[in-house]
């Protein structure tokens, strides 16, 4: 187990360090910079979608979807961060309990 733990840990750290260390000159092109700007948006929304609507390698709508919907509404009403997250958990837990 230890070799896998160490390989994953050091590898993930190396990936982070490499990303931060790419010379700014390489990114100075306007389009490259535009891509770098859009990358966090694309990655984070993909994460939201996969964490809320998939289970393993299947698509799945369950209590998490209700939680996310609650979060969308809370964000619309400009609720504070912890309220958004707390509400999502609460709704997911209640829906799961009721199902």
């Amino acid at each position: 187990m230890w070799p896998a733990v160490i390989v994953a840990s050091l590898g993930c750290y190396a990936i982070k360090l490499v990303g931060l260390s790419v010379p700014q000159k390489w990114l100075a092109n306007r389009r490259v910079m535009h891509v770098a700007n859009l990358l966090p948006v694309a990655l984070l929304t993909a994460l939201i979608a996969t964490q809320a609507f998939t289970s393993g390698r299947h698509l799945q709508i369950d209590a998490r979807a209700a939680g996310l919907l609650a979060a969308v509404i809370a964000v619309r009403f400009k609720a504070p961060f912890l309220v958004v997250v707390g509400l999502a958990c609460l709704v997911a837990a209640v829906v799961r309990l009721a199902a």
Partner: protein
Amino acid sequence: MTELREVDHDWAVTRPAVLRDALGVGIATGAYGLSFGAISTASGLSVLQTCFLSLVLFSGGSQFALAGVVGGGGAPMTGAATALLLGVRNGFYGLRLSGLLRLRSWQRPLAAQIVIDESTAMSVVRTSRPAARLAFWSTGISVFVLWNLATVIGAFAADALRDPRVLGLDAAAPAAFLALMSPRLRSREPRIVAAVAAVVALASVPLVPTGVPVLLAAAVAVVFGFGSTRREPDDEPLAPEEVNA
């Protein structure tokens, strides 16, 4: 979004607001860290290995993936490979963050450790460089401390916390990312990119290995970024000689 400012004129307002949010994000991910500690030890990793992952790997998605593969009876190295695949996105975050934060070379190895979803999302939505820097460091440190603390507690309280779904904790991460990203989703292009990225990721989930759907979403950003010729208002200003370099 307005152009990134070098000076924050509302610092007296911005600073406490950013710090408060950073603590809030730390608390929320800490709650998720409890379940990581519990699931990881339940999957057959020792308490020490579990804590090592939170300290050194420090990327929630990758850690859950490793524990998930091992817990499901997979080979540990398959788990490591999945963790690395999921970790690639942090490298992409670094591309964006290095220009935003303008780190000194001695800061880079420290900053690298806290390049994660939360610190990136908190940083890229800011309108001034000082606020972006403060958001990155304060969120990264807050999440690091609370995530590790929660991992230890979760690892020792495994039995009580083995099914975090009962508390709805599996809805916490998507809700948190949504709350963090929402300021970026007010203008048109990021909205379109977000929508297409989500659809591409979901459509590819049944077809490709875990970790790959999120990377395909990165391709969406690349296609849109290179395809659009329009100058975006939230682009950083460039020196003339750098344009089309």
